[in-house]
């Protein structure tokens, strides 16, 4: 397996795992508090919609000339990755609160307990259905976006789909086993890593689409990825220092993110809509 293929596999797997953890919190809140039947119907409906999106957009992307595809997808990934990285750095340096999956679960459960029961369109609990549907759909759209863009650019949508499916299955299996939000997942560290990869591949493909010939070809990624990693860590250290100088509380950067319950947010987290962008 080539280095770009390994990077594709890992990036899609980690990104999908993060989003699956967030979707799991919402599904658990709906299922445990309301009823499982409607919750699972909502989940299934969202999966069907996502499958249709993949079936329509995936093949459509493959017929676009590679240069144009790389330019557009590179620009989108670089902008999208910047958001992930920006938020991960702000959280790791203490300028934003870490995402608390247990807290989100508690709020969802509280809201689900007080919501009225409505039977609609053959669904016995419309609230559980829509909560689950929106949560899975919005989290899943990010997964689909990453998997399709990475897969199409690498001409390996199949590998991206396998990585995405594996991540969802692993998270679902753990979720079924523990029947609780996966609050110990080091989400900010994972989002930081995904932000680095998305930005790096966005730079690589975007510049290629603009006509650049990278020195060393694909091997340039072996420089771009560490460069973006060092940049993210460097900015985190700078912000931590600035915050400490200003008397603010500073969590230990990524090490803390990996020990602290959950961090990060993305479309659908908590409020079931894009909070302030992805990541």
């Amino acid at each position, binding site marked *: 397996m080539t280095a770009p293929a390994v990077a594709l596999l890992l990036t899609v797997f980690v990104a999908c795992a993060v989003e699956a953890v967030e979707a799991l919190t919402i599904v658990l809140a709906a299922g445990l508090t309301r009823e499982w039947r409607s919750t699972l119907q909502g989940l299934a409906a969202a999966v069907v919609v996502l499958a249709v999106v993949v079936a329509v957009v995936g093949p459509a992307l493959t017929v676009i000339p590679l240069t144009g595809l790389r*330019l557009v997808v*590179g*620009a*989108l990934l*670089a*902008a*999208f990755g*910047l*958001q992930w*990285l*920006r938020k991960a*750095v*702000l959280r790791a340096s203490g*300028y934003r609160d870490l995402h608390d999956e247990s807290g989100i679960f508690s709020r969802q459960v509280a809201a689900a307990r007080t919501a009225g029961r409505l039977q609609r369109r053959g669904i016995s609990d419309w609230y559980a259905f829509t909560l689950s549907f929106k949560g899975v759909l919005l989290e899943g*759209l*990010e997964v689909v*976006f990453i998997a399709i863009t990475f897969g199409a650019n690498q001409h390996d949508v199949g590998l991206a789909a396998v990585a995405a499916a594996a991540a969802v299955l692993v998270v679902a299996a753990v979720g079924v086993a523990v029947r609780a939000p996966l609050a110990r997942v080091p989400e900010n560290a994972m989002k930081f890593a995904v932000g680095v990869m998305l*930005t790096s591949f*966005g*730079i690589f493909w*975007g*510049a290629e*689409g*603009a*006509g*650049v*010939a*990278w*020195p060393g070809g694909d091997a*340039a990624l072996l420089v*771009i990825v560490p*460069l*973006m990693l060092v*940049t*993210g860590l460097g*900015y985190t250290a700078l*912000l931590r220092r*600035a915050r400490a100088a200003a008397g603010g509380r500073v969590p230990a950067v990524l090490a803390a993110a990996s020990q602290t319950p959950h961090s990060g947010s993305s*479309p659908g987290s908590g409020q079931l*809509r*894009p909070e*302030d*962008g*992805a*990541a």
Partner: protein
Amino acid sequence: MRRLRSFAAFWYDFIIGDDWRGAAVVAAALAGTALLVHGASANAWWLLPAAVIAALGWSLARAVRRD
């Protein structure tokens, strides 16, 4: 119309997020790269990474100032 606006807002939040400047810098850097490559025959591979690193720093500085 309201649904169309919500749809557009969703995709704006999804791709651009809460700081449009990052996306604007990426777009400008790509345009600059294409101009240099095709207009001046310069293999400007360095422009986009430099712009992205600068954009991240700028965006973080703005976020911290607002904090």
